[in-house]
């Protein structure tokens, strides 16, 4: 017991010093800010200011305060049954809910009608999904252009490479983004009905992943597979971008294209199926 006062005053000094450090760090932070600011130094000084204040306060509580352990009784939660019954009576009988069934019924009907009317503005938040889920900006005769809007020429694409294309006038479009890939012509094994869709080994698929809609941005040229970087769905370019691995279940829709005499490409129509992830009413 005799040593107690000595220790206490030491802690008191320490706490005082910590509070002083907070003040210093605060002034330092102010200086750094005025001199132009520096993120790392600001963070460290702020942490010192807050931290030494925090340590000081905790030490104060732990060592300089008498905080005995005490016992408090709990009380039961439920109210006195008489009071509960009285609440029930007050709520119900004075307003007459149980006696006036008709009015209660009509009141609820009124509230339901009002709620419906008040909820209607929610529908203003967006248009009803119509045909645009099923279509893109591709139309027969639309020229294939790059992200900067300039037409893509067959000679721009070396074998086993690819370029992102858009319909002319819609460069950068999210749902019309398409990959134009050049593979050696003999390798393609497309459905016979689509034989004319890929002239001279140039084949075009929607770039919107059929799994979760990410742009299918990776191409493994050695295997001729497209890979979606989001969830690793993998599509075989040679067989019509059919899914061969990962969570995607549908092939990337293929865009029918024609090679023009001037070396540019045009679309022969829109994608035959909706692009992007599937949705419930997709087949309707």
């Amino acid at each position, binding site marked *: 017991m005799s040593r107690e006062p000595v220790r206490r005053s030491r802690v008191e000094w320490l706490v005082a010093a910590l509070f002083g450090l907070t003040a210093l760090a605060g002034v330092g932070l102010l200086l750094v800010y005025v001199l132009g*600011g520096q993120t790392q130094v600001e963070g460290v000084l*702020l942490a010192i200011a807050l931290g030494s204040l925090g340590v000081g306060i905790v030490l104060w*509580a732990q060592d300089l305060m008498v905080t005995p352990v005490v016992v408090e*009784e709990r009380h039961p939660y439920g109210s006195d049954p008489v009071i509960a019954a009285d609440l029930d009576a007050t709520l119900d009988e004075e307003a007459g809910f149980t006696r006036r069934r008709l009015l209660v019924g009509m009141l609820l009907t009124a509230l339901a009608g009002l709620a419906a009317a008040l909820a209607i503005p929610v529908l203003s*938040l967006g248009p*009803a999904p119509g045909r645009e889920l099923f279509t893109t900006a591709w139309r027969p005769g639309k020229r294939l252009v790059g992200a900067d809007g300039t037409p893509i020429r067959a000679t721009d694409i070396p074998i086993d490479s690819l370029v992102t294309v*858009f319909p002319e006038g819609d460069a950068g479009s999210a749902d019309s983004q398409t990959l134009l890939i050049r593979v050696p012509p003999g390798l393609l094994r497309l459905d016979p009905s689509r034989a004319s869709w890929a002239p001279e080994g140039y084949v075009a698929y929607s770039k919107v992943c059929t799994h979760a809609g990410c742009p299918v941005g990776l191409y493994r040229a050695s295997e001729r597979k497209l890979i979606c970087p989001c969830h690793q769905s993998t599509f075989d370019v040679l067989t019509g971008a059919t899914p061969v691995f990962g969570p995607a279940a549908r092939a990337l829709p293929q865009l029918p294209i024609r090679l023009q005499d001037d070396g540019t490409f045009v679309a022969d129509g829109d994608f035959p199926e909706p692009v992007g992830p599937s949705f419930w009413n997709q087949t309707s």
Partner: protein
Amino acid sequence: MTDRPRSDAGATELDRLIGWLDERTGFAEVARGALRKVFPDHWSFLLGEVALFCYVVLVATGVFLTFFFAADSRPVTYDGPYVPLRGAQVSAAFDSVMRLSFEVRAGLLMRQIHHWAAVVFVAAIVIHVCRIFFTGAFRRPREINWLVGFGILVLALAAGFTGYSLPDDLLSGTGLRIFYSVAEAIPFIGPWFAYLFFGGEFPTVELLGRLYVFHIMLIPALMIGGITVHLAILWIQKHTQYPGGRARETNVVGRHFWPGQVFRSTGLFLLTAAIIAVVGGLVQINPVWVYGPFVPFAVSSPAQPDWYIGWLEGALRLGPNWEPTILGVTIPSLFLPGIVVPTVLFGGFALWPFIEARLSGDHREHHILQWPWQAPARLAIGSAVLTLFVVLTIAGGNDVLAVFLHVGVEELTQTLRILAFVAPLIVAAIAYRLAIERRRRDAEEEQ
């Protein structure tokens, strides 16, 4: 009564202020009761406090950020000091985040503290929930506060996701695109819901403004309401306590709210803020200038969300490529991992106190906590869910992990698909076994 003299000799300024207030409100009696309230001491009771303090840091830094951020997707040309992006077409929102990061003094510090605080906030909530779960603190009469807490956790996730999406960088744009696709997979109303929320087909100009309203107004307002109710119920019901010592079901053993608990909690607040400040100052987070502005036809790879979204991303990555068409209705492959799995997990989570009471038949009140091994079945189920969470989170980074481990993504994904089912069962069995043994040892020692 009205002019009772309060200014006795020796009265301090504080006495006078209290007197002034008490004469007008009678608050002294309430305040005295509050200051004398008893709170049990245990380190694990501080986890919820850490979450609360993170929320304070989030509001403080967030208010600062709102003074600079522009929720505007109109295109502008970037001409700020970050040379690699100079001349690039970016949205006004991205531009404002760049300005905040490079030109506003202490702006980057505030941004990084805000983001780190969000990361720690959700972590603190999750660990707090684990403590509540494994010690049975949710049992009657505290089911009600479990539900409120569940609401706060969902709000925290929503706040995190909306905040992550605001800078309009490539990473957040990819996240939104996936969110839109998952929304489309909601049975039957999916496309309608997605169109109402986004304002049309992705991407829309309305979206940023809407996310902003959610992030800085609707979610924080609900969260403040939720936290207030959470704490009020805690206050009214009194805290639980661990067994041992003088603790009984009928009492609370601890220290008075004032001064010990108030001082310790204030210290804890300052230390929490200090740690977030130093991390926010020294450790870069979400460098949007590296990702670049959002363009719908590009994607950053590898793309990783914040940690608490990783398990949802992992579920999508492990999802089977099933897309059956039944009676002319296509069930999207996203439906199972994107809608069913989260609904089942969150639903079971929210209703757990009622499920457990039904299964165990224990409907009594409990104020003494259990050690995790005292309820082996609960420990097993909780460990299984946590294991699933870990496997899915790992799956959310399968591409990065595959490179790191020098294995193919395909093999790793297949392995993780199996692990998602097997690992939780194994962990549950081990946890159950250990708990039973520990319980038996405890019983033997008591004899």
